[in-house]
């Protein structure tokens, strides 16, 4: 009989886990049930900020549906309890579904701090975690005159840029002394703030919202902790997330900030696992997608009886974090300068006026930390160099040169071109051969072509050959023969 696997949560990590399990399970050993509380088909959550910015159509977010013949997908149904003795999950529609293995992928929800004025739940205060949230914020943005984004982390900034792109004036407020304090040092964060201001996003740091002020149940302003009051008819709270642990806690499993699991992603109950944003493995919680995906793969491999891949160097390397917003190109990964070890080599290039900043941290010649802001041409290459650990140039700063330093060679003028220069690549014809053809009486391009085959391949060198012939013809007039000939021959001779 097949083993019944129930997965709770059809978010990005639950989805990935099911996908990998189905792919690997050729003998159909598992009967899989996927329980997802959201009404929608599984979607790419991290693109919600792109949708909010009007840069992506919702259609582009929908993930592949799990194969219907392999997975019983209960969409729009939540799991409300776990009966560990019976080995059953209790569902919101009153039914029970039995399991031999239970995988919790319940994710996280936005954390809303207990601000004064929120008890009455005024309208126009939002979070951004789900498709519904995104729809609500976008709908409000149509009429909003000033939006406040509380929290200057990755998500808050993406949302702020998105709202700005929709034409809403925005102020980002963060209690830390600088933006994205979890990832960035002060230097790049200040350049980032400058960049955002240039885009029309106001930034207030070192301060927070004390109270939401509303009238007739609608938000009208916020009062800051320093007493200032800002008019606001839209507030997006982006103060981090809290893992969804209630289900696990209710079943008596150990819960701390997340559902506590061991290195094998197993809870104290050997039949129950947790992965993704809801899980708290010994390596810690990140709230990022890539580690969740790695956990999904690891757990799928374990259930399939495969050796889970050795945690590679790559997996232990902290994930690159990219700010997805039009007009701001920021990627940061690994060790930042303020956390560098004494022996690390730290290179910094800061150009605040142009909104650019780069930090590179090298340890024993390898790239272990990168922050790039405002260099969209090189940020993918730097990310790759970090992520794939390709050889670092002796001068690491040359990583900042676009195209890896390959300057486009100017084609020299016919006169100064050395005689050995290949003019016609297709037929390997050099300038020298063209000059001899001319000397043999070939006075126009067609004659040169007949003599040397130049121009008879792709035809791309026709202009250069024309130029050469014109130059040769021009240098020919009988009266100036002597000078013309020397001029003509000099470059040829010096190079042969």
């Amino acid at each position, binding site marked *: 009989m097949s083993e019944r696997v129930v997965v709770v949560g059809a978010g990005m990590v639950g989805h990935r886990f099911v996908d990998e399990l189905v792919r690997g399970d050729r003998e159909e050993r598992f009967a899989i049930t996927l329980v997802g509380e959201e009404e929608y088909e599984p979607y790419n959550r991290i*693109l919600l900020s792109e949708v909010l910015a009007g840069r*992506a159509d919702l259609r582009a977010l*929908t993930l592949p549906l799990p194969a219907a013949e392999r997975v019983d997908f209960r969409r729009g149904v939540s799991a409300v309890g776990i009966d560990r003795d019976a080995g059953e999950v209790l569902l919101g529609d009153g039914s029970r579904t039995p399991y031999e293995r239970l995988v919790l992928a319940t994710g996280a929800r936005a954390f809303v701090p207990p601000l004064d004025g929120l008890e009455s739940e005024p309208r126009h205060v939002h979070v951004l975690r789900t498709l519904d949230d995104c729809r609500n914020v976008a709908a409000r943005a149509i009429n909003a005159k000033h939006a406040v984004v509380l929290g200057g982390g990755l998500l808050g900034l993406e949302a702020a840029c998105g709202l700005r792109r929709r034409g809403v004036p925005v102020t980002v407020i963060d209690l830390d002394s600088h933006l994205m304090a979890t990832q960035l040092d002060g230097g790049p964060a200040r350049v980032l703030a400058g960049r955002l201001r240039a885009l029309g996003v106001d930034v207030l740091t070192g301060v927070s919202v004390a109270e939401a002020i509303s009238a007739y149940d609608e938000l009208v302003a916020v009062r800051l902790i320093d007493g200032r009051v800002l008019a606001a008819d839209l507030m997006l709270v982006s103060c981090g997330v809290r893992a969804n642990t209630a289900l696990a806690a209710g079943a008596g499993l150990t819960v701390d900030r997340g559902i506590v699991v061991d290195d094998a992603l197993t809870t104290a109950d050997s039949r129950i696992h947790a992965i993704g944003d809801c899980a708290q493995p010994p390596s810690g919680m990140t709230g990022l997608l890539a580690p969740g995906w790695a956990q999904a793969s690891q757990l799928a491999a374990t259930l399939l009886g495969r050796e889970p891949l050795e945690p590679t160097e790559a997996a232990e390397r902290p994930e690159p974090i990219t700010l997805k917003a039009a007009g701001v190109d920021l990627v940061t990964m690994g060790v930042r300068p303020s956390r560098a070890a004494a022996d690390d080599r730290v290179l910094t290039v800061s150009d605040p006026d142009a909104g650019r900043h780069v930090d590179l941290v090298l340890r024993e010649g390898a790239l272990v930390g990168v922050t790039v802001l405002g260099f969209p041409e090189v940020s993918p290459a730097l990310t790759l160099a970090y992520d794939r*650990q390709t050889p670092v140039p002796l001068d690491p700063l040359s990583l900042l040169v676009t195209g890896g330093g390959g300057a*486009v060679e100017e084609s020299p003028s016919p006169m100064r071109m050395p005689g050995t220069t290949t003019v016609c690549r297709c037929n390997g014809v050099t300038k020298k051969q063209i000059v001899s053809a001319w000397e043999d009486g070939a006075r126009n391009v067609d004659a040169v072509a007949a003599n040397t085959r130049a121009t008879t391949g792709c035809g791309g060198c026709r202009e250069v050959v024309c130029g050469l012939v014109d130059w040769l013809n021009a240098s020919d007039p009988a009266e100036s023969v002597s000078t013309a000939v020397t001029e003509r021959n000099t470059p040829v001779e010096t190079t042969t």
Partner: protein
Amino acid sequence: MTDTHCPYCALQCAMTLTPSVEEGVSVAPRQFPTNRGGLCQKGWTSAAVLRAPDRITTPLVRSAQGVLEEATWEEALAYVAARVRSLQAEHGPDSIGVFGGGGLTNEKAYQLGKFTRTVLRTKHIDYNGRFCMSSAAAAGNRAFGIDRGMPFPVSDVDATGAVLLLGSNVADTMPPFVQHLAGVRERGGLIVVDPRRSATAALTDEAGLHLQPLPGTDQVLLLGLLHLVVAQGLADEEYLAARVHGWDEVIRSAALWWPGRVATTTGVPEASLRRAVEVLAAAAPSRGGRGAMILTGRGAEQHTGGTDTVTAAINLALALGLPGRAASGYGCLTGQGNGQGGREHGQKADQLPGYRLIEDPAARAHVAGVWGVSPESLPGKGVPAVELLGKLGGEVKALFVHGANVLVSAPDATAVRRRLESLDLLVVCDFVPSETARLADVVLPVTQWAEEEGTMTSLEGRILRRRRAIDPPGQARSELAILRDLAAALGSDVHFDTEPALVFDELARASAGGVADYSGLSHALLDATERPLHWPAPAGSSGTPRLFATRFAHADGKARMVPVSPGAPADDLRAEAPVYLVTGRVLAQYQSGAQTRRVEALNDVAPAPYVELHPHLARRHAIEDGDDVAVTSARGTAVARARITGTIRPDTVFMPFHWPGDGMANAVTNDATDPVSGMPEFKVCAVSVARADLLEVTA
């Protein structure tokens, strides 16, 4: 004066031959829609191979002392027949293998397949086109129900508004083709995807776009472009609803490839991805553009995920509503001269003439009827080239090689040599002593292009006449005669014509009703008309220059979109092998170089293998231009001169694969293959680089 076409690549440039004393013939280019009077240096100098000093002009048989010695045809064929008989008696029919080539005429390819199935009756046949076209072919069949490299004439490229060219260096491999890109370059619509700023990528310098991804990430790049098409609502929904199955699943397959992730996976900046989509969408006919094309070459195809990469390219083309529209569509740029025809007439392990499947009972019955044998007597399907080579010395005891130099052109060449050496019998038909021929037990001298009649099917699916200008030297014979004589020597009563026109007529009958239907064609018709004749050309039709205008070739007329998900290269980067090797061709050499390395003028330009590497990488390893560099993979090492250039990615080195010996690129490449097409992963493997002298010191 004889009108014919170039012996080398699939562009099949038109040329006129005049007999001459020194070189046999003199070559002049001829006006023709594909080459427009152009030839590359390979074509111009092609006559030199006719009189190559080491041309083989008599049969050679390896003596008891192990030397290849001259023999008469009777002796050589009798020897081969006796060995084949005894091997088959002991080990069964499948102990003989046949390895064909994409340079053989349609007539020879057809006859070779027929000989294999009716005389040798072995299932073990495949050909070097597997190294070339198989991924695009598999993807084309899957999507469109037909595999014709370009489903439109090359001249359609002139008119289009945008071309996305992936993994093809046409400026070096088929220079006259570049003429057709003039319009699109002027319009700023040329987008070239290549890890190197190749001569072709450099065509985008003034206007246009060069995307320079990490090797092995083309599929991710394409999914990223598709994602942007969906995200920005640029898909041609009306077309997709009317003409395509599978769009919904394909949309979903791109959901996880958002621009930021694609940029950091491929190394291509997000702005370039967005720009590429803008250019393609603006040129799409559904948005009022002049047309847009997506063309792929080996760079995108020669991967373990090659078929899926081509599928991703086709998906993108379909999403934009391109295939079947004016000056639009997806096309694959075939490499070898008859790479197209070579795969249609029975050299492929699973196929019978007319692009019929050998496992299809109706196909077997039809073809067996033409051949005058019983359908049951035909073998079943064999295995693709790399797997076939893997069986040498094991299940396969003897191998016939026609028009291929596997020792240089197959991946993991060192292993290939070992396997060839372990054979009981190796018979090579060639006109020069190629590296493979030198290992043979029997070498049979054959005719070259200017010495024979036949047909070739070019990259645009047009059937062209190859014509004889001079007589072959010495005792060289056409494969058509050799196969007939061998059939007789092996006691077969199956009929084999030797007159190419008659063989073509039989091929036409065998192909009738198949996907690649040639039944309306004959040498006489091809000689009598200037009209371009593209297959399918069933009896009574005048050929099909453009496919898909109203329907695709699947039974219901609709195209199939198939979702794909990219994987990593089989041999991926790691600490001991931190850079990628990509391989390819240079302008002045062709394939394994067996022909072009015998032409002085070409050797002057491209005398030796080299390793192209970036100054950053070079400096790190204290390598200077011209130093000998060792490139080492898990399989082997190749040593060649350094060519330092900023036009390649710093994490990638490039080697041309035309040379044997120390600098043989395929000693390093990986023989992992695509599970769908059997295509080996020539285009990416992980290597380390070092200055050769330092390597020896430490070793």
